[in-house]
Every structure is written in C-alpha cells, then in structure tokens.
C-alpha cells in the first residue's frame, strides 16, 4: 500500500523506471555469465589427454609449500587417471618452478602456455609470483582454477579468469588481529610481511581490526631469502610491540624467530596459515610456542569424513602421510576435476561456465565453495588455531566474513 496517493503519470513513471531497472539487472546478469561454447577452438585437449599447468616455488625459501602442493595435486590427478580420467581423457599436469619470484613466473607461464600448450592453470602456490602472471592470463583468456594466492587484487571481476578459493590476507589478518586485540589487549602490534601485495593486504587487515582502538600497528616489509634477519629482529625489538604478526615463508619465519631469540626479544606471535605445518612445527616449534595461526584449510587430523578420505587416499597413492601443503595441492586438484567433469564440453568457456555454476561444493578441506557469474571469490572464511607443544588446538572455528 502506498503511503499516499501519487498522481497517475508519476506512478506510471515510477513503475516504468522500476521495470526497466529489474530488466536491466536481469540482462546484465545474463550478459556477464560466461557462455559455454562447445565448438570453441581450445588448446591442450586431445582425444586422449587434458594438459594442465601450474607454477609453484619448487626451489628457494618457499619450496616447501610448492613441493608439497605439487605432490598433493599429482597424487589426486593420479587417482583420477587410474579411474579412467575425465571424459575418457587422462590428465597431464606440468608443474614448473617459479622460485617464488615474479620475474621467473612471468617467463615460466609463457613456457607453459606457448611451449606446452596447456588448457588451464590448475592450482598454484604463492601470491607475488602468481600476481605477476595475472595480466598474461587475462590477456590469453586462460582459466586459472584455485591458485593459492591470497590477495585483494584477485577474487573480483577485475581478473575474471581467476577463480579463487583462498581467503585474502585482508580478511585473514583482520580476523586474527581482531582476536588478539580482544583477547590479549596488547598496546601495540608489529607485522613483518613479504614486501608488496602480501604485506600490504595483511597490514590493511590489521588496520581494520584495530580501528577505533588505541592499538598501533607497525609494519616492516621483508624480502624472501634475506641472509641475515638480525637487523629486522633489532628493529622489532626497538618497536617493543607485545605481539609480532608474521607473513613470511616458513624458512624465513623460523630464521626471524631464531634472530629475535638471539637478541633476547621474545614477544607473542601470530602467523598466516602456512605455519600450521608439521615440518615447520618440528623444526621451529620450540621457538613458536603459543603462536596463533590462521587456519585456511581443515587440519589433516580432522574427523571430517572427507578429510579422512583424503588422508587415506593420499597414503594409499603415495605411501606417505600428507601435510598441509599436500592437502592444499590435493584440494586444488579436486576443484579442477569437479569443474572439468561439470563442463558441458572441454573448452575454456565451458569450464568457466561450469565454475560459475559451482554452488556449495564440499571438499571437507576448505569451507564450501560457491562461485557465480560475477563471483570469483569462492571461499570467504578462516579459523584460528594455537600452537601448543607439537600440535595446534582450535581457538576460533571457521568464521565467514562479510
């Protein structure tokens, strides 16, 4: 019921305008959805094979993550191939080493696309190295499925070919800093982060968390693989923060904690998800006790039936127990396979259309994944754990953010 009577022409005008708005929104939605073109010429797919590619750091200080993710992905594709592949075709995955360096990644993506003729980019590990290849991916129109490259520059329609399943670092560090500020009441926080988008996003998240409080956030950028972190440790000590947040490679995190310990600075610490890794805890657990760690993927020890199936399948395939990075590579491959299976035809546009239609896809490892015609951020949740002895305990369950 209208609150008061409108003149007839005014009413007609309002109704016409409203109808036009609704129609245009519907049309816009349809227009922005990717159209599946089964006859589209697509490289990397033959009658017997689907060629996929990924870039990961397989050498250098970030190699642990890349090698683990590679092992996880290869194990999953191996199982799918053992079962007959997808639509009668075996998956061939080529993983090249980008050394976690943007310049190397820019060279290697050309090798994957121009030499190997891949169909799609399947997974990947590392933000600065992945961000460096996004312009090339977009120019070439190659779908990039579930790379682990948390960044505020991805997960939006600015990069429509990139389908993200990693929550960005703004959200991750906002949730983590919010928890620390509310629980431990620190006076100031320091952040040491990989220089560039990774560190900047993390700082932005922490700034959001301390907004409206007196807590100050100091930020020190870092370059992976720096030989001596003592000057950074000295800077941190001089800043006298109660908490130090870290978003560095596992090796650099351990080395910085060693350097901080050597100069007698032992604050409480919080770090990105990579530190909830058995190898890291084994090597640097004694220096990291009480560390709050973001939890982007379910723990390998989770009782979730899908996670337990992953662990047993991985062990059966490789003979080894998986860690967090193997889990990451596995779930990336799982999402890729789901998209390939759902695609009406094995063309790039049809795979993108299939991804846009992915709703509430459950892996057990990640929170449910949902994309859409204009939604490229498939996951928007993170939990928190605390390092206690040689294992982590949950302090905040997966929490979605707006």
């Amino acid at each position, binding site marked *: 019921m209208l609150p008061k009577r409108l003149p007839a022409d005014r009413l007609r005008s309002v109704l016409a305008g409203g109808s036009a708005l609704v129609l245009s929104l519907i049309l816009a939605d349809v227009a922005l959805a990717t159209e599946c073109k089964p006859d589209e010429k697509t490289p990397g797919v033959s009658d017997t094979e689907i060629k996929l590619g990924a870039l990961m750091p397989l*050498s*250098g*200080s970030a*190699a*642990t993550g890349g*090698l683990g993710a590679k092992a996880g992905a290869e194990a999953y594709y191996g199982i799918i191939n053992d079962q007959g592949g997808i639509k009668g075709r075996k998956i061939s995955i080529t993983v090249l080493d980008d050394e976690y360096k943007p310049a190397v990644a820019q060279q290697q993506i050309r090798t994957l696309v121009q030499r190997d003729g891949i169909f799609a980019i399947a997974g990947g590990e590392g933000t600065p190295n992945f961000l460096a290849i996004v312009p090339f991916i977009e120019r070439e129109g190659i779908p990039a499925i579930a790379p682990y490259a948390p960044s505020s520059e991805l997960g939006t329609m600015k990069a429509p070919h990139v389908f993200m399943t990693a929550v960005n670092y703004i959200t991750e560090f906002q949730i983590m800093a919010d928890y620390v500020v509310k629980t431990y009441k620190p006076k100031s926080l320091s952040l040491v982060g990989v*220089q560039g988008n990774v560190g900047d996003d993390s700082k932005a998240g922490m700034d959001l968390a301390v907004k409206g409080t007196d807590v100050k956030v100091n*930020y*020190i*950028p*870092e*370059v992976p*693989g*720096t*030989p*001596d*972190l*003592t*000057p*950074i440790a*000295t*800077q941190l*000590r*001089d800043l006298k923060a109660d908490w130090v947040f870290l978003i560095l490679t*596992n*090796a650099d995190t*351990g*080395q910085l904690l*060693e*350097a901080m*310990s*050597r*100069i*007698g*600075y032992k604050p409480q610490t919080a770090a990105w998800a990579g530190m909830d890794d058995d*190898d*890291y805890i*084994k*090597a*640097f657990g*004694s*220096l990291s006790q009480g560390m709050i760690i973001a939890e982007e993927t379910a723990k390998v020890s989770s009782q979730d039936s899908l996670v337990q199936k992953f662990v047993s399948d991985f062990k059966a395939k490789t003979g080894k127990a998986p860690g967090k990075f193997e889990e990451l590579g596995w779930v990336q491959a799982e999402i890729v396979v789901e998209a390939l299976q759902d695609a009406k035809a094995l063309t790039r546009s049809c795979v993108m259309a299939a991804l846009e239609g992915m709703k509430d896809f459950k892996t057990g490892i990640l929170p449910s994944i949902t994309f859409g015609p204009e939604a490229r951020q498939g996951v928007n949740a993170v939990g928190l754990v605390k390092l206690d002895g040689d294992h982590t305990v949950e302090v905040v369950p997966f929490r979605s953010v707006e």
Partner: protein
Amino acid sequence: MIADFNLATIGQVALSGLATGALYAIMLLGVLIVFQVSKNINFAFGQIGMVAAFGSFFFYSRLGLPPWLAIGIATLVAVAISALTDLLIIRRISHRQGLDFVVTLGELLLLTSLAELLFGTSAQSYLALLSDVSWTIGGVFVNANDLLALGLGVAIIALGHVILNRTALGISLRAAAEDAAIAESVGIKVAGLRTWTWAVAGLLVAIAGMMFASRLSVSSFYMTPLVINVFIAGMIGGLERFWAPILAAFGIALYQAFTIYVFGEPGGVPALFLLIIGILTLVPKRLVDERYEARA
C-alpha cells in the same frame, strides 16, 4: 621504513654485522686460496657448506650421534667433496678454460638435488652453537654465538695470514700461484698442493656453513644468498689479494646490516648494488683491479 638510532641499537646491529662479516671472511678465505692457487671459481662452494650443516643435522637428529661427532663426520664429508672436486674433475679439465664454471655449476645443482632428496625441502632448526647463551651489556644483547663467529673469524684469518706469509707451505702456495711451471721445476708438487687448498676451502666453508645454520636455519638453499655476498666481497676487494677482500667481507656485512635496519629489508639489496657500482666507478681503478698492482 626509517628507524631511530640509539647507542644500544647501533651496538646491536654492529655486533650482528661483524659476526656475519667474520663468517663471510672465513668463506672468502676459502675462495681466495682456491682462486689464487688454481685460478678456479667453485660455484658449488656454498653448497659444500650446506652439506656439512645438513649432514651434521642428519647425523645428530636422525641417527642420534653426539653433536661433536656429527659435526666432525659432516666436516670430513665436506672436505672430501671439495678435495675430490679438484682431484677427479678440475684437474682433468684444467686445460679447457671456462669449463670449471660449468662443472661446478653442475655440482651445485647436484648437491642441491641430493640434499632435497635425502633431507627434504623444509628448513630445519640447527644446533644452537651457543646461541642460547647471552648477556646484556649496556643495552646490547651480546650472544655467545656472535662472539664465537667473531672469534673463529679473527683466529682463522690470522692463522691463514701467518701460514701464507711466514711458513714454507705459504711460500710454496704463493710460488704455485705465481707460476706453476717454475714451481714444479723447483720440486713443488703443484697438483697435490692444489688439491690440498681445495680440501682446506672445504673445511672453511664447512665451518662457516654450520655457523650460519646455527644463526639462521639449515635448508637446501640457505647458503646461496650468503655465497653471493662472499663473491661480491671478493670482487670488490680483488681475488688476488688478502686483506682487501677480507675487509670487504666485513664491510659488506656491516653495511647491509645497517642499511636493512635503516631502510628496511627491501632496501638491503639495492643498497648493496649501489655500493658495488659506487666502488667500481668512483674508486681509482688501481685500488680495485689487481692487474694494476705493482708486483715484486
């Protein structure tokens, strides 16, 4: 980020820089003696140090050997690898100029791959080597590991200088470095002497590698950026000299420590290359190029 300075901070950063510089100097001494006697650059040099550190880590953490025994065995392995590199490879290709670069580069990749296969790719926390002993003096946190690095550096450099300049062995080494044919003619076994210098270089990089591992962590790649800095010091100081490159090693470590503290870590590498460009372009050529040195 521009940091604030106070005396304690200056002392802290300087101590760390000097300790790092001492370890660079130990490594550089190994590079110098090999270059001066054999005229070879060993690109796998840093990875031989990695073998010593990762090897000792493996022996004490996985096999349960006492740390001193683990360090001893791993050091012998590093010394053997270095000596065998000369004995089995370099000696056979010495007449083919430039091939030593290719061979030692191949050895670098081989050692890295083997380390990944045997020990995995994760960084590991190494023996403390006195990192857990410290005192606070005038606001400066003095760690015993820093003092150990400094002590080792000073002692080894002094010993190296004495051996090279005050002993018959040193005279033989310098003769072999100056002209191998003449040295052979007066009875010096140059080939054997060269292999021994490679062995000593292996010992030196093993010591530095294990010390660096105790300060950072040990992984397949941790020595790479360190050895680059060592080669830079050698380039600045001159590989045919003794004191200039050794001082350059200390200078680079101190310079990097302060530039990283003041400008942040992203400023460290550009600052180092600015320094190199500055030295190579502004300092008179005779001071940076040994070819212009007057020889006796």
